[in-house]
């Protein structure tokens, strides 16, 4: 409770009606699947889209979507949203990523020189997307938050890099090679983080997923599947949050913006223009939006629109209609 008080500003108190909605962790298994997200360990070989369609086949679901494409040879964290949670992955596309990369230099060079260059290639860097890419090829700025050299072994440099969404590590290695004047390429890459998802006990392989689904269908044991598939709320853990009244939920589901009166508590770090996740008192994800004021102003306000709704994730009719 102390923790909650520290990070949140409490604007009003209210209770939630147990007759509507459902706590994310206690959804029935079918609903859990439809609103589920998988922290998948992508194998080397297939493209991200192939992995997507394999998951669709394994789980017999209608839709899947992934949060940030990985090249065929790259492995690691690839969050995959199922059915209703497919669109939630859009919030992950723009989230920060972390990789472990092995860069191979094309000639022997002083270790010190490599360290200095990598030091320089931090913060804002310019990058042109590679020849074969999904986006328009024009110079763009990307933020490198942190580069940490783990080991240097002759021409091989192993490093961990934290970067903004849309950074091409292959290009990053190439550019470092150019800067050193000897050339370099990316030899091996593994994603270790995508937004809130990282290499932990939730990281699931396609094999585990297949077996868990099998166990549920054939033996009726859903416990394994619940370990593999996480509630979609896990995908917004990296965002700032606002909790709203039951009475405001359905209006938002129909596309209304969030007004001051509907807000119960909010993250005290919310700044104007930032993306926020809007949750019910049960912790269900309703929508994502853009804050129109800083946390303090929202806290003090008594009327007016505080957050514009960007993407709605909850189905209309989950909560009763309280607006006219």
């Amino acid at each position, binding site marked *: 409770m102390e923790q909650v008080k520290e990070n949140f500003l409490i604007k009003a108190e209210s209770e939630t009606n147990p007759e509507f909605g459902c706590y994310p962790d206690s959804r029935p298994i079918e609903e859990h699947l439809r609103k589920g997200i998988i922290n998948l360990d992508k194998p080397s*070989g297939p493209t991200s889209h192939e992995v997507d369609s394999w998951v669709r086949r394994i789980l017999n679901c209608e839709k899947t979507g992934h949060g940030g494409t990985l090249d065929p040879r790259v492995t690691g964290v690839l969050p995959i949203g199922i059915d209703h949670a497919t669109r939630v992955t859009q919030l992950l596309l723009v989230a920060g990523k972390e990789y472990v990369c092995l860069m191979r230099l094309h000639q022997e060079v002083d270790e010190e020189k490599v360290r200095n260059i990598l030091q320089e290639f931090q913060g804002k860097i310019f990058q042109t997307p590679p020849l074969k890419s999904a986006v328009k090829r024009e110079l763009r700025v990307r933020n490198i938050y942190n580069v940490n050299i783990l080991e240097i*072994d002759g021409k*091989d440099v*192993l490093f961990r890099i934290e970067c903004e969404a849309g950074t091409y590590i292959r290009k990053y290695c190439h550019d470092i090679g150019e800067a050193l004047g000897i050339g370099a390429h990316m030899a091996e890459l593994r994603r270790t983080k995508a937004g809130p998802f990282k290499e932990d006990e939730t990281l699931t392989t396609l094999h585990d997923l297949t077996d868990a689904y*099998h166990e549920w269908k054939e033996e009726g044991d859903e416990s394994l599947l619940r370990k593999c598939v996480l509630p979609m709320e896990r995908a917004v853990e990296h965002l700032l949050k606002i909790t709203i009244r039951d009475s405001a939920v359905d209006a938002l589901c129909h596309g209304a913006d969030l007004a001051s009166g509907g807000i119960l508590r909010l993250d005290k770090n919310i700044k104007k223009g930032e993306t926020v996740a809007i949750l019910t008192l049960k912790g269900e994800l309703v929508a994502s939006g853009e804050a129109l004021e800083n946390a303090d102003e929202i806290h003090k306000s008594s009327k007016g629109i505080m957050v514009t709704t960007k993407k709605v994730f909850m189905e209309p009719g989950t909560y009763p209609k309280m607006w006219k």
Partner: protein
Amino acid sequence: MKLKTRKCKSCGEYTLQDVCPHCGGDVGVIYPAKYSPEDKYGKYRRMLKKQMLKKQDAGVDA
């Protein structure tokens, strides 16, 4: 092609060496096993998993 990066099985650190430089633990490969959508041997994999679970349970009891 063989990949050079290794990952410690106990502390999860990445390294190029044969022994984890941080904790001295065993290192393993960094990528998950290949998967095929046909999953021809899934049945046997599940059998093995069950056996191992049973063994584990028996070990705890004893």
